[in-house]
C-alpha cells in the first residue's frame, strides 16, 4: 500500500511544484500575486484538448502548443494589465485584484464556450500502458507526468543559475531599480517571465488534465489554493523551495487522504500552512527581510 501511495504522491506533488513554479516566478520577479494563474492553468488544459480534438496532434505536440498558448496568455495579461499598473506604481494589492478579474473573465468564458460539464480526452489519446513492480502499479502516463515536470523544472533551474538571462532575472528579483541601473532590460524580462510563468501553468494544466482525464472550467480554483500553500511553504519567490514544498504538499495530501479521511487532506495542508506562517513567515527555506528603524 505504502509504495503505491508514495508513487501517487510523487505524481501529484511534481505537478503542484510545476504549477507553483510559475506562480513563484511571478511573485519573485514581478512582485505580483497572480491569482489568474489557476485560470491560465485551465486554459492550457482546454488548449491541449482542442489541439488533440481538432488538429489530431500527438500528445507531446499538443502539450507544447498548449504551453505556447498559455504563455501568450500570460504575456497578454502582463502587457495589458500588469504593465499599466506598474507604470503608475500601484500598491501590491491592486494587481492582485486585477488578476482576480482576469480569473473570473477566463473561467466564465470557458464556461460559456465549453459548458460546465467535464470534458475528456478522446479514447486512445492517453497511453494506457501499465507496469507492475511487485504489488505497485505504475501507469505509463504517471511516469510521463513526473518525467516532464521534473525535466521542465531542471531546465528552468539550470537556466536561472547558469545563463546571463537567469542572472539578470535574479538581479531583478533582488531589486528592479538597481537592475535597471545596471543596464538590464527590466521590462523585457518582465514580459519574458510572464510568458514562462504562463507556459509553466499551462503545462501543469495539461498534465493534471491527463492524470485525471477531466477538464472543467473551474479546475483552476483548487490548484490555485494549493499553489498559494506551496509558495508560502517554500518561501515566496524561492524556486528551489517551491519544488520541495510542492512535493511535500503532494505527500501530505495523499497520505492524509489515505490514512485519515478524504476531506482532511486539505485541512492538513492549510493547517500546516497556517502554523508555518506563524513560526516561520518566510517559509521553510526562506530568510526574513525586515525593515528596522
Amino acid at each position, binding site marked *: 500500500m505504502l509504495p503505491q501511495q508514495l508513487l501517487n504522491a510523487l505524481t501529484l506533488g511534481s505537478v503542484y511544484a510545476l504549477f507553483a513554479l510559475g506562480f513563484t516566478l511571478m511573485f519573485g520577479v514581478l512582485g505580483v500575486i497572480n491569482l489568474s494563474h489557476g485560470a491560465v492553468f485551465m486554459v492550457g488544459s482546454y488548449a491541449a484538448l482542442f489541439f488533440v480534438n481538432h488538429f489530431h496532434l500527438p500528445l507531446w505536440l499538443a502539450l507544447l502548443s498548449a504551453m505556447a498558448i498559455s504563455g501568450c496568455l500570460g504575456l497578454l495579461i502582463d502587457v495589458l494589465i500588469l504593465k499599466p499598473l506598474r507604470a503608475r506604481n500601484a500598491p*501590491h494589492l491592486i494587481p492582485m485584484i486585477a488578476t482576480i478579474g482576469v480569473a473570473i473573465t477566463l473561467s466564465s468564458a470557458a464556461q460559456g464556450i465549453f459548458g460546465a460539464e467535464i470534458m475528456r480526452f478522446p479514447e486512445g489519446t492517453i497511453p494506457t500502458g501499465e507496469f507492475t513492480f511487485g504489488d505497485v502499479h505504475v501507469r505509463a502516463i504517471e511516469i510521463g507526468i513526473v518525467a516532464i515536470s521534473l525535466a521542465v523544472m531542471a531546465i528552468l533551474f539550470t537556466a536561472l543559475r547558469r545563463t546571463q538571462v537567469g542572472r539578470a532575472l535574479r538581479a531583478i528579483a533582488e531589486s528592479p531599480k538597481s537592475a535597471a541601473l545596471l543596464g538590464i532590460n527590466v521590462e523585457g524580462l518582465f514580459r519574458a517571465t510572464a510568458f514562462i510563468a504562463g507556459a509553466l501553468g499551462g503545462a501543469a494544466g495539461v498534465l493534471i488534465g491527463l492524470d485525471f482525464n477531466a477538464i472543467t472550467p473551474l479546475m483552476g480554483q483548487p490548484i490555485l489554493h494549493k499553489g498559494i*500553500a506551496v509558495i508560502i511553504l517554500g518561501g515566496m519567490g524561492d524556486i528551489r523551495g517551491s519544488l520541495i514544498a510542492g512535493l511535500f504538499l503532494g505527500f501530505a495530501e495523499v497520505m492524509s487522504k489515505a490514512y485519515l479521511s478524504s476531506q482532511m487532506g486539505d485541512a492538513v495542508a492549510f493547517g500546516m*500552512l497556517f502554523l508555518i506562517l506563524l513560526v516561520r513567515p518566510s517559509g521553510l527555506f526562506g530568510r526574513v527581510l525586515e525593515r528596522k528603524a
Partner: protein
Amino acid sequence: MEWLANFWATYSTLIYSIGVYALVALSIWLTLACGLLSLANAAFMGIGAYVSALLSLQAGWPFWAVLVAAGLAPAGVALIIGIPTLRLSGVYLAMATLAFGEVVRIIILNLEITGGPEGLNGIPQSTRGWHIVAILGLAVYGLARMRRSRTGRAFEAIREDEVAASLMGIDVKRHKLFAFVLGAVLAGVAGGLNAHATFFISPREYGFENAVDILTMVVFGGIGGLVGPMVGAGILTLLPELLRFLHEFRGIFNGLVLILVVLFLPKGIWEPRRIRALFGLGPKEG
C-alpha cells in the same frame, strides 16, 4: 401598493444581502485603514453565521442575544489568532489569514454539528430590514467618529509608516489587534444577520472566493472613505442580478468591469472629488 409588495417579495433577499455585504465591506475597510491586508473576514462572517444559527436552532436564544454572540465569537477567535498573526506584514499577513480562512471552512465542512457540506437549514427568519439599516447606521456612525479620534489618526499613521508611527509613541501592536478584532465583530454580526435573513447557510458561502469578493468590493468602491466600500458592496452584489440577461457570459462582464475599474479608476468608483468635478462643482482634479 401591490407592486411594492411584489417587488419586496422578489427582491428582499437581494436588498438584505446588499446591507449585509456593506457591513462586511466596512469590516475589511477598517483593517485596511490600519494597513492590514486581512482575508480572514469571510471566515469571521462564517463563524458569526454558524454560531448564531446554532444558538437559534439548538438553544433557542432570542434574536438580540444571538446577534451579540455572532459578534463576540469571532472577536474571541480574532483575539487568539491575532496576537501571533499580526506580526506578519503585507502579503504574508494576507496569506496567513487566507490559510486561516481555509482551515475554518474545512472545519465547518467536517463537523457534525454544522451539518457538514449540506449546511444548516430552517434558521428562523428573524432579520428585518430595519435591523440591518440600524446596525449599518450604527457602524457607519461609530467608524466615522473613530476616524476623527485619536485611534483613527493612529491607524492612519500606522498605515502610512509603521516604523515612524511606533517612534511617535503609538502602540502599533495594540492598535492593529484592535482593528483586527473590531473588524471580526462587524463581520460576525453581518454573518448573524445574513444567516437569519436567508433561512439556509452552507460552508461554501464563507470560503476563499468570498474573502476575495469582499476585498474586491472595497477596492472597487474605493478605500478612501466609508461610503466607497458600501457603494462597492451595493454595485457588486447587484451586478450579477442586473446582468442576468447575459446568461452564462455575465461572469465575463463581471470580470471585465473589475479589471477596467482597477486600471482606470485607481481610487475606486466612489471618489467624491471626481464626482463633484463631473458636475462642475468644486475644484477640478489636479
